[in-house]
């Protein structure tokens, strides 16, 4: 250490603000330099004696100050008080227990978010039917406008099964119970003698001999005549009861195309739509139901079926729209 450096650090040495190494260097310098020793001795003596007398504050200083502090706190501006409040809350927030509690809640909340079931992305579920065909409970037989024009078969069926019939609100259509299967009913098969071929086939159908009934109805349909369309529908229905919707839907479509504009064709279209719905062909079923909206005898049921598909059906068609659409459906 030289004299210049010593002059710079002499006050730090005097007030004990030097580190140990520099202090030792300054001491060594003073051992070698009389000038440095003299400078330091004068500063030290001056400091030793230049002690100012100390005075205690007035006795009520602290009490008066604390009272003024209380008043000053009450008069603090809003933003400073808000700052104190934030500081206070931050003091609580920094406590480890609260931080750990908040972390725990965050973890639980995020876990629940991931565990929550995701909504399905498919609008329809395809269901495949296996096993014995279900009993058809809603065979709808169209009834002619005039009572005297109703087929004899319908009259007979209505008389025979009037107990089991569930009335529908649909005008012009009657829902009748499906014929019980031979195995479940335990009733003996009715005698086929003396009946015309249609009644014989119908009796077979009612007894659950669907394949025989189908063959009978197909023969009548192929022969043509007054009841050809009706027999074709029953043949398709017998096929459905025997083999299920997968094979019957095309038969219903064929009936609809072979006898356009007839009540049997509309009923075949309705049953084809039902089959399409059961097979999971939602779009095909929707189109079929929408076509039936134009048919007064089937419009209500078609609208309900469309609603069950999850869509709002179009508004009820006006009389003019129905009249305009009727020829189109015959094509």
């Amino acid at each position, binding site marked *: 250490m030289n004299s210049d450096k010593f002059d*710079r650090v*002499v*006050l*730090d*040495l*005097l*007030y*004990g*603000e*030097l580190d140990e190494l520099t*202090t030792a260097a300054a*001491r060594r310098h003073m051992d070698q330099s009389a000038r440095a020793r003299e400078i330091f*001795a*004068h*500063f*030290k*003596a*001056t*400091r*030793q*004696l*230049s*002690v*100012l*007398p*100390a*005075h*205690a*504050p*007035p006795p009520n*200083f*602290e009490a*008066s*100050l*604390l009272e*003024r*502090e*209380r008043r*000053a*706190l009450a008069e*603090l501006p809003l933003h*400073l008080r808000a*700052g*104190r409040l934030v*500081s*206070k809350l931050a*003091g609580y927030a920094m406590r480890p227990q609260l931080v750990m509690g908040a972390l725990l809640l965050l973890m639980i909340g995020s876990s629940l978010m991931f565990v929550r079931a995701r909504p399905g992305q498919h609008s329809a579920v395809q269901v495949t039917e296996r096993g014995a065909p279900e009993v058809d409970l809603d065979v709808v037989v169209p009834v002619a406008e005039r009572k005297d024009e109703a087929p004899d078969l319908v009259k007979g069926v209505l008389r025979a099964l009037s107990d089991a019939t569930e009335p529908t609100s649909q005008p012009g259509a009657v829902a009748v119970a499906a014929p019980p299967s031979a195995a479940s009913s335990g009733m003996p098969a009715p005698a086929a003698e003396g009946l015309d071929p249609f009644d014989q086939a119908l009796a077979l159908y009612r007894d659950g001999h669907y394949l025989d009934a189908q063959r009978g109805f197909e023969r009548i349909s192929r022969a043509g005549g007054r009841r050809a369309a009706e027999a074709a529908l029953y043949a398709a229905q017998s096929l459905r009861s025997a083999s299920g919707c997968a094979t019957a839907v095309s038969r219903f479509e064929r009936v609809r195309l072979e006898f356009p504009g007839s009540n049997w064709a509309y009923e075949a279209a309705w049953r084809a739509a039902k089959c399409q719905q059961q097979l999971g062909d939602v779009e095909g079923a929707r189109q079929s139901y929408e076509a039936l909206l134009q048919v007064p005898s089937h419009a209500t049921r078609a609208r309900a079926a469309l609603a069950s598909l999850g869509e709002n059906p179009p508004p009820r068609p006006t009389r003019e729209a129905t009249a305009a659409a009727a020829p189109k459906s015959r094509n």
Partner: protein
Amino acid sequence: MGNLGSVYTQRVRARTAAAQGSLVASAPAIGQLEIGPGAEQHTMSVGDVSDETLMLRYQRGDRSAFGQLVRRHQVAVYNFLLRQLGSVLAADELAQEVFLGVVREGGRFNYETPFATRLFSIACRLVQRERNRHPSPSEPGALPAASLDRTLEASIVRAVDALPEAEKDVFLLREVADLPFAQIAHVTQQSETAVKIQMQHALQRLRLTLQNFDEYRRALR
């Protein structure tokens, strides 16, 4: 206040003994001296909490922490202002203002600056305001007369009063407030070198006053 004379003597003896015991004397600060009843509260033991911790507690609503800060620093602040202004009343009033300044800026308290430094920054600002209001020292002779009947002590008081303002600020901040030079530089907004130069000048002026006393010659040996 009656025992202040003996306190003065004790401080001189303490500094002399410290200087004899080691080359680097670490004299006790005024704020750490025992003055009057309850003076033990002014001392800060190693286990005590720091000023900054107390200030944090006060910001969080613990008013007793403010009381502790007042008890810890009131003597230093009061004597610093007394030596600056020369009036007991003014020192009492301004010392309260200094602590109230801490209350008002509590929300903006900077924890990187030591509390004492912040406290004396406020004190220096208030002193400067008073100097601007009253250019001449207020009420000469207003200091307690009991402290002037000792020749050396009175000479030192007069010599300190006669120091230029900048040197007086530095001297009092070092000797009364016991701030390190770096913190004095922060308070006076000067460089540390400039502060040390002013301190050297202040000590040389005091030396001129003291060198006529036998005590000074004895201290030199």
